[in-house]
């Protein structure tokens, strides 16, 4: 009995680890910066806050932030769902590579992506030139620059992979039996999809929607660079207020608003999530994936692949091409050759291999930390507490509250958190250790969202059967939960790696360029800061290297197999 109690205590302590991490690296700095900003002289800065209410501009910003995020999420889900089906149901040659390619956009710096979009869709871009020649038009037919359409397109481009990986990964473990049973009972394809497949997918769809919504809700680079000054979100407004006008009270109040919204969204999410979760029988991918057999299926796969190539791969190819294009468009390796050369003898020059090494090290560190913390959190969020036994899908009020807390880091502006670190973290604030820690903060909500739908979907019978046969709770976790959740855990690992490789906002506050803290996005940004073809060329060359390193990283992480893990 004592032993049992000790185990419960141990588990409780373990549960506290993610919470402790959040407190030290999130809530503490956040509260510190909010306190300093909102109470500059020990009193609430009411005067500065007054204009938030009196000026309709801010209400407009909140409204735009919300609807563009909702629309971006909806579009990404709609366009991504066929892709998720492809990855969740079929085997085809080149599948792993395509999957890696679809994830690369996630890490690309916005200035560089903007240049790639312009090379394809701009007034003198490939598509316009082609259409003008074909149709004999005088003016370019596609005029997307500085419109909401370009913002939406970019958001789909960046977040498509979230649908592919989270929904597609979940789909791949859904048993085919239920659909087949529906067909036997006389349901046609559409009925089977609406009444069987879609409800089963709902938890993963909802998780993906939540992540995409939060990402686009806090969108910064896409809005500034592709949307232009006509658009502003809460995130860009916080930056303007804090960094340009140095009006901390207003920036802090906007941050509070942003956090409150995120929390509301989370409450809505947990509410829906509780209603739609159904226990499922998961199957190994060996049983669910097959080659396309009918002509219809082959066409579907081909169309899908073509769509992904056009949407996600052409802009990337345009960048690769640009990195080899010298003056007058001739082929050159100059940009790559220049990377290791420190022609000005600057102390802040970092050789490319070292930059890649830094980025990969931080990304691996982030991956390990985020997966560990994410798994612990997810485990805690699903473990049945005595009062609500047999209802692990829903969870108690406490777990719902905790679930919302875990997601908050995704809804907080990088500027606010960056300044919070400066105020609150003492000596640690200039340490390179802070980089993977800050990345983990953004990455581990992804891990939680990747594995939670699967963990909650595991049929309680399985666990009960194991327990009845004498397995201890730890053993049940190890033998039942972990193998089933393994694939989703890999999805979370890939996301944490990716987030760390591409993160710029928060990193720019803590990375001190030069030496060990220069990451790839930081180095790219540095090149973009000065005129001269060689600088832009090197930025694009480094971006291409970033792409390659990421692709190799994804392929490597996905090859990971341990027992049944990864088979599911």
């Amino acid at each position, binding site marked *: 009995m004592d032993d049992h109690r000790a185990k419960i205590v141990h588990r409780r302590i373990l549960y506290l680890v993610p919470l402790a991490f959040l407190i030290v690296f999130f809530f503490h700095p956040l509260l510190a910066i909010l306190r300093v900003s909102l109470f500059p002289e020990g009193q609430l800065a009411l005067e500065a806050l007054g204009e938030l209410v009196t000026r309709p501009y801010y209400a407009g910003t909140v409204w735009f932030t919300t609807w563009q995020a909702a629309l971006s999420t909806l579009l990404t889900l709609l366009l991504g769902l066929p892709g998720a089906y492809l990855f969740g149901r079929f085997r085809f040659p080149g599948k792993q590579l395509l999957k890696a390619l679809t994830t690369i956009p996630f890490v690309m710096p916005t200035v560089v992506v903007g240049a790639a979009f312009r090379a394809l869709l701009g007034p003198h871009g490939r598509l316009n030139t082609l259409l003008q020649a074909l149709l004999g038009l005088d003016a370019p037919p596609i005029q997307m620059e500085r419109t909401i359409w370009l913002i939406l397109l970019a958001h789909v481009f960046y977040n498509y992979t979230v649908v592919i990986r989270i929904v597609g990964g979940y789909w791949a473990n859904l048993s085919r039996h239920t659909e087949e049973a529906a067909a036997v009972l006389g349901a046609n394809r559409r009925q089977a999809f609406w009444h069987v497949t879609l409800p089963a997918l709902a938890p993963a769809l909802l998780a993906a929607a939540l992540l995409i919504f939060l990402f686009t809700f806090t969108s910064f680079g896409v809005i500034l660079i592709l949307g232009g000054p006509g658009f502003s979100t809460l995130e860009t407004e916080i930056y303007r207020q804090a960094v340009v006008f140095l009006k901390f009270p207003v920036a802090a109040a906007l941050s509070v608003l942003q956090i409150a919204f995120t929390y509301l969204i989370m409450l809505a999410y947990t509410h829906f999530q509780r209603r739609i979760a159904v226990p499922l029988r998961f199957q190994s991918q060996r049983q669910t994936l097959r080659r396309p057999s009918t002509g219809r299926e082959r066409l579907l796969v081909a169309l899908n692949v073509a769509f992904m190539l056009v949407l996600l791969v052409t802009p990337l190819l345009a960048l690769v091409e640009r990195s080899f294009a010298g003056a007058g468009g001739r082929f050159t390796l100059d940009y790559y050759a220049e990377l290791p050369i420190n022609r000005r003898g600057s102390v802040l020059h970092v050789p490319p291999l070292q930059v890649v090494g830094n980025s990969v090290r931080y990304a691996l560190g982030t991956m390990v930390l985020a997966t560990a913390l994410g798994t612990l959190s997810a485990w805690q969020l699903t473990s049945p507490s005595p009062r609500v036994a047999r209802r692990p899908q829903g969870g108690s009020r406490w777990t719902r509250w905790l679930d919302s807390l875990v997601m908050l880091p995704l809804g907080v502006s990088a500027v606010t958190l960056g300044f919070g670190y400066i105020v609150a973290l003492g000596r640690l604030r200039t*340490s390179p*250790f802070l980089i993977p820690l800050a990345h983990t903060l953004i990455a581990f909500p992804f891990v939680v969202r990747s594995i939670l739908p699967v963990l909650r979907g595991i049929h309680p019978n399985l666990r009960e059967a194991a327990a009845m046969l004498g397995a201890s709770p730890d053993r049940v976790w190890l033998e039942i939960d972990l193998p089933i959740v393994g694939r989703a855990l890999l999805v979370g690992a890939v996301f944490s790696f990716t987030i760390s490789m591409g993160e710029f906002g928060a990193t720019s506050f803590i990375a001190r360029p030069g030496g060990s803290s220069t990451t790839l996005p930081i180095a790219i940004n540095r090149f973009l800061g000065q005129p001269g073809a060689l600088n832009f060329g090197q930025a694009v060359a480094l971006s291409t290297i970033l792409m390659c390193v990421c692709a190799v990283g994804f392929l490597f992480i996905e090859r990971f197999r341990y027992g049944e893990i990864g088979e599911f």
Partner: protein
Amino acid sequence: MRKKLLALALWALALLASCGPKEPAVVRLMSHDSFGVSEEVLQAFEEEHGITVQLLPSGDTGAALNQAILSKDDPLADVFFGVDNTFLSRALEAGIFEPYDAPSVEKVPEQFRLDPENRLLPVDYGDVCLNYDKAWFAEHDQAPPSSLEDLTRPEYAGLLVVENPATSSPGLAFLLATIGRFGTDGYLDYWAELRSNRVLVTDGWEEAYWGQFSAASDGDRPIVVSYASSPPAEVYFSEEALTEAPTAAVLADETCFRQIEFVGILAGAEHRDAAEKLVDFMLSRQFQEDIPLQMFVFPVNPDAQLPDVFVRYAEIPSQPATVDPAAIEANRERWIEDWTTTVLR
């Protein structure tokens, strides 16, 4: 057990990072991200004085200054470089700098010394000017603009791209140039005319230059707001060896705005002595001569020799538009707001 170890390791990591040993001979220099110095020059200073300089580039000017202000009770550094004349009053008001009467500041021309108390000492200056694509103007057989007024004429319609003063420091500088030129009661009318002449606004210099400027991108705007030192940078960082810059700056009177950058010792600096030595060094001829190629701005020390590429390709406007720093601090927000209403809404 294993899990406990993990927790322990996590905490150890945090602790380890937070309590490194204190070295007495370290001076920390906080700056914006555009700061640069050559290894050779910095090393010479470190060896001469037995001081190690730790560099802390901290984002763009506004972000770096904010960090310094927010950490005023527990300073991140001993010396701060990169406050410019648009942020000067704000920085002084925040009370984060201590006076230092560096001996060598006497040599610096009066026009650069904006703080009589010497809390902020001038280091370099650069002019934000219109740049144009030479090839475009040659091809279209058109003269490049020679005044701000030119830009409102029909033949320059749709040619100009500027940065948003609310998010970009050259953008703010150019807005100030128009205020210096047309006064506070005339600049909005000027911008209204620019707007009807289809001026394009981007949020940052990067997007204006690399996204819209015809000489550097797939964009179709042959005039951009950049720096007077951008043409030499185009030559220095060209992909093929060039004998002529592909771009040029418009240097006519009252078309540019001069940014002066300052260095100061932070209040509560741990190593005041070393900090003073570092400031002296930054005003010395050796550091001043290193400035042009590292940061693409001009040294304030008149004795400093310019590098070849600057002598050949860089020009300095003789009469940039000027606005008093105190007026900038008092009106920055209102000017930007009014500009936003006139140009963007």
